[in-house]
């Protein structure tokens, strides 16, 4: 639904009445106050904190250090390693989410009996808490008795149970799988909306021209899905970069730092080392990256509002 023209029409009319101006201000005031107090002020305050060497282990001496916290972070190999891990986690997750969600959306776009049931159960992973999701997968991945080991064993793919989350080579893949499973439903819904907006006459025209199913998919469906893909990509990238819960539940950054991502480092610096200055600086770097991504969303959104 496009909101631009309506708004424009309303804005071009007569001058703003004083009563309307006053009521609008009153109606907006609670939201403005709340968001200023709980969002804007904290994010500015966070930047201020990041300029100090604030350690809760040493609360009475808080020297101003300027951008030293940032400089230290950028010189720390651990930081760059975790940026690498966050990046690979994000790339793997987003690619898998887009692929699986596309298949699911294509299925739900068909008319058949049982479609309603599928779209209802699709919401289950989306609705459950990340903590429960984490516990569930931790049990599935269990090296001693887990379902994944059991399944691979019964299928004859392994001779004996293998180490799963404790294996540095598998841990990120397994965490990615848990994340993807929970994020796929939202992506599917978004892609489905895009699919529904494709005009049916495009397909019938292509059929008349003799295009087969595969050709229609490549030449009509895929290009039409581009805006949906873009939206999913930006949104899920923002989600993956900041993701914390599964790393906490499944591995706590281990084994041997194999899943030590940036979000986990923020937690370690802040609440384990109690180095609030460094934690704030790290979180600020993440916020800036997220904002840069979100900029594209806001730009396309505000054009519509």
């Amino acid at each position, binding site marked *: 639904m496009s909101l631009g023209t309506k708004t424009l029409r309303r804005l071009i009319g007569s001058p703003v009445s004083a009563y309307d101006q006053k009521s609008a201000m009153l109606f907006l005031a609670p939201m403005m106050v709340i968001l200023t107090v709980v969002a804007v002020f904290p994010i500015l305050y966070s930047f201020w904190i990041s300029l100090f060497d604030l350690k809760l282990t040493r609360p009475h001496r808080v020297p101003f250090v300027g951008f030293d916290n940032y400089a230290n972070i950028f010189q720390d190999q651990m930081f760059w390693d975790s940026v690498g891990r966050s990046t690979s986690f994000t790339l793997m997750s987003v690619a898998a989410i887009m692929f699986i969600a596309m298949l699911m959306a294509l299925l739900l776009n068909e008319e058949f009996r049982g479609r309603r049931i599928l779209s*209802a159960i699709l919401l289950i992973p989306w609705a459950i808490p990340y903590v429960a999701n984490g516990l569930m997968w931790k049990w599935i991945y269990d090296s001693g008795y887990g379902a994944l080991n059991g399944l691979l064993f019964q299928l004859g793919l392994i001779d004996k149970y293998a180490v799963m989350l404790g294996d540095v080579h598998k841990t990120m893949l397994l965490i990615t799988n848990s994340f993807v499973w929970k994020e796929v439903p939202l992506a599917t819904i978004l892609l489905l909306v895009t699919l529904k907006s494709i005009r049916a006459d495009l397909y019938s025209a292509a059929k008349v021209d003799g295009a087969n199913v595969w050709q229609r998919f490549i030449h009509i469906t895929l290009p039409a899905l581009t805006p949906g893909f873009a939206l999913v990509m930006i949104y899920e990238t923002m989600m993956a970069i900041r993701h914390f819960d599964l790393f906490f539940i499944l591995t706590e950054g281990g084994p041997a730092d194999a899943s030590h991502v940036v979000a986990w480092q923020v937690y370690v610096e802040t609440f384990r080392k109690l180095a609030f200055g460094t934690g704030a600086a790290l979180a600020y770097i993440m916020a800036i990256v997220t904002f840069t991504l979100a900029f594209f969303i806001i730009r396309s959104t505000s054009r519509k509002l």
Partner: protein
Amino acid sequence: MKIPHLGRRALLFFASLLFAMYVLAPIAWLVSSSFQSEAEITSVPPHWIPHQPTLENFSTIFTAKDQVVTYDTRKEGDTASGGFIPSTAKNLLPSMWNSLVVAVSVVILNLLVSVPAAYALAKIRFIGRDSSIYFMLTTRVIPDIALVVPFFLFVQQLGLLDSKLSLIITYLAITVPFSTFILTGYFESLPDDLDKAARVDGCSRLQTLTLVYLPLALPSLVAVVLFTFLTSWNEFLLALMFTQTLASQTMPIVVASFTSDFTISFSFINAAGVLAIVPPVVVAIMFERYIVSGLTAGAVKG
């Protein structure tokens, strides 16, 4: 149709089966193992369907408050019967109550704040409308992890650490922009003429909102209530930072604490996991239509 009718049906059936398995298999395994004793879930290979289903894991949770869990009682507890329960087991039900209180409070406050704001943004002409929209959209994308440090210092200075109030306030930060956004879009889609007619009839702005638009906006209100409820019910990171005791610990925190117990009893944890997912899953399936339309409106436009 190029694909023959029967072939199409077989393909759809096969695809639906894969779809359902991908979504449901992990959940089904969680539910199945929550009805198995510790002895049974540690069988190799696993029993996909419980051979001797038991409700013991659930009864442990509901009776945990009477049990004193010490190192000795736990050592005596028979591993095979699921006797090793986490020392925090008795906290689960009170924490679900905390989650409920926090979620309901956030839902109410959220509506009080976002409904009038959304109406103003959608239906009133005033100076500063565009900048207000930019403001709301910008706050929507602040990542929660960037708010952790300043929030913690605020909450600590206000003496609100370990209180439900600290969670309620901070959850507003992550839910209000989204709610306002969805509601603004919905109000925009309702006809302007209603607004004019009500105003001509002598309704004040407040009356126009409450008497004319609110009843019409019911579907989007339901969606907003659901999102806010689920977000608050499921939130983990901020709760992990601010809560220390049962005065404020929410369900995700207590459930997570089970995993840090070294004598972990998976049969117990699975039952706790099932309890944790039941409320959101019921809500999601009951209100599927509202959720899908809300998600679509909310995410497609931002």
